[in-house]
């Protein structure tokens, strides 16, 4: 399966390997939605378990964005990973899996990664108008949007 | 039981009815108007009671005040009534209003002057105990046909309303 994909995209698939029995592949951001589509349609990865991201501030391409997929038919999981720089757009997988809607919103909320073609990209867990994206490594653990708290809650600080 | 303080209650109920009737047309708020109308209807029911017509009074309360007016309120709350539009209507009809008021006033004057001749004073002591029974006998005896026609008319009205309100049945 992976071989077939590799054949199709060549260097687009940068790495496929297994760590502790879990498969993952790293692909180029440009082809990720096609790969995901193929994985769903041709390889029965019909269940998108999770979409998430990891922040590596010291890297040039700061973010890992991950799709964790599962196939009911093969009882198998796979992780699709892309690496993008800050501010780079990722094509949304909402058309492929409707579940991606909220998951991508959460990634946007927490990391500030924008998804292209998402129907309703806005904050989900934090309130509208909050400044900053908490799960970035440069966002301190006790940091908060003082201004927002003061305006909307009428208190000095939320801590 | 002999009635007590008849005159007092008559003027009380009549005054209540007239006052709330005026409120119905004078309030700008549709809900307040509807509530005033309910009070007017209740006052009327009281007047019926004083005329020894308990059945009519009961039906007045149960149908008009308890049934129809509730539906009125229901519809007023549901339907969007734009206030401005309503006020405009009031302004444009002042001429008609005056004509109607003058006509009605004239009628009252005539009735007041010729009242004795028109309605000769005879007090009928209606049997309070069997009032309802008599209505029943009359309704299903003498006026059977008219009664059935009326119910048929209502049936047609119901079907018409359903046809009008529903897009597809």
């Amino acid at each position, binding site marked *: 399966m992976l071989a077939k994909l590799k054949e199709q995209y060549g260097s687009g698939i940068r790495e496929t390997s297994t760590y502790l029995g879990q498969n993952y592949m790293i692909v180029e951001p440009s082809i990720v939605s096609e790969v995901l589509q193929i994985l769903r349609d041709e390889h029965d990865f019909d269940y998108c378990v999770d979409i998430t991201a990891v922040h590596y501030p010291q890297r040039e391409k700061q973010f890992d964005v991950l799709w964790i997929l599962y196939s009911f038919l093969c009882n198998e999981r796979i992780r699709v990973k892309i690496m993008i720089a800050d501010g780079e757009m990722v094509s949304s997988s909402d058309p492929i899996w409707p579940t991606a809607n909220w998951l991508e919103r959460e990634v946007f909320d927490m990391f500030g990664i924008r998804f292209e073609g998402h129907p309703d990209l806005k904050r989900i867990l934090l309130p509208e108008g909050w400044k900053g994206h908490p799960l970035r490594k440069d966002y301190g653990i006790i940091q908060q949007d003082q201004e927002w708290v003061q305006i909307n809650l009428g208190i000095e600080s939320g801590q | *039981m*002999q009635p*007590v303080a008849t005159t007092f209650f008559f003027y009380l109920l009549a005054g209540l009815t007239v006052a709330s009737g005026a409120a119905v047309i004078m309030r700008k708020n549709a*809900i*307040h108007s509807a*509530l005033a109308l*309910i009070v007017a209807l209740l006052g009327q029911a009281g007047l019926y009671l004083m005329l020894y017509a*308990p*059945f009519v*009074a*009961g*039906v007045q*309360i*149960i149908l008009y*005040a*308890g*049934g129809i*007016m*509730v*539906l009125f*309120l*229901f519809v007023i*709350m*549901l339907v969007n009534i734009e206030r401005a539009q309503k006020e405009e209507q009031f302004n444009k009809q002042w001429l008609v209003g005056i004509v109607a008021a003058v006509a009605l006033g004239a009628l009252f004057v005539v009735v007041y002057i010729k009242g004795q001749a028109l309605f000769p004073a005879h007090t009928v002591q209606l049997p*309070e*105990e*069997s*009032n*309802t*029974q008599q209505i*029943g*006998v009359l309704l299903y005896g003498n006026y059977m046909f008219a009664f059935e026609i009326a119910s048929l008319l209502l049936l047609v009205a119901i079907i018409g309303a359903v046809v009008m309100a529903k897009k597809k049945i």
Partner: protein
Amino acid sequence: MLEYITSYLNSNTTPGQAGNLFWAFVYIVLIFLGLSVAVIAMNWLERKILAHMQVRLGPMRVGPHGLLQPIADALKLLLKEDIMPERADKLVFWIAPLLVVMTAFTVFIVVPFGPTHAVTDMNIGILFMLGVSSLSVLGIVMAGWASNSHYPIMGALRSSAQMVSYEIAMGLAVVSAVLMTSLHGLGTYGVATGGSGTGTLSMIEIVKAQQEQQTWFLFKFFPLGLIAFFIFAVAMVAETNRAPFDLPEAESELTAGFHTEYSGFRWSLFFLAEYSAMIAVSAIAVTLWVGGWMRPFPNWLSGDTWDLVFSLIPGVTFILLGIFAFVGVRRMPKHPYFRIQTLGLAGFGAVLALIGVLLFIPPIRDRIQDIYWFSAKVAFSMYMYIWYRGTFPRYRFDQLMKVGWKVLLPIGIGVLILTAIMGVVL
């Protein structure tokens, strides 16, 4: 003056019909007080019974077994801040609870607790009851609208639709019962006992008709009476907005429905009205189908001996309740902390027993036993209310309408027609 007062006692009619204002006033005061006590008692009983159905204890802290809890609650409600939403329609918001309470209490004018124990007997008694109780929906609609808030207005809309719908089924059931009163001159019960062929709407006359026909209308034209009663029993639960038809105040959907924005005393008025309305419709049901003030088995167990036995039951009941209270006293923990509670319970038991003893005195006994049987039947109906609440989930709005219009209404019409046919045939 004294003559005016005593003259009524010999007359065999209600104070309203006798034209005795003094006694009418006394009856009104008695009914008002009795109803308030009944609502308070009902509050405690509902919480206790429901609690025991749900494997918990219910109120236990204020007074022995929480007996004083309703009083404490009433005090709390009276002292609570009365909040009126800023943008509420002040006048309507203010009138609504009053209207609801007024209608709920007014209907008791014609409720016959006994052949002479009613404020008055109207020629249109049952019509009056239905009419006045149908006015209470106005109060609910006004409350919902005046609050100027979303949940209350949805509650108001629901309740107006619901009550108007179920009033029709209720009316049909009532009419079939009224029809039964007119059939005693013709029916199988043979001897024309002066029946004119026309029925009556008067509450007292309806019970008297059952007395003459020697049957509860519940069992008349079996099973027609039973079906009519069943329709009424369902409709009356819907009319009073109680589970499983408590959609206008559905807690889990509309927070509290039409009285969401009410607090303190105003809210307690709604509460009072709800419970007195429950008692009122139960009273209608009892009057129409279950023989009103008549004691059970008047024709099977007839005769002076049985009369005496049944007339002793009220006193026995109260004495048993008193004994029950004393058992409770014995079972109270023997700790100084509980001394006041124990004494209170003992006092309560003593009062109950005293009432029981009083009820054995012949003049009181004869006057009171009608009221006792009537109240006992109403109390059973109230217990059913609590039972429903403990057992049933809530209907959805469309299902509620379906039950009202597509089930109860056709059956009601069918029962009405069949009753009429039976009356003619038999």
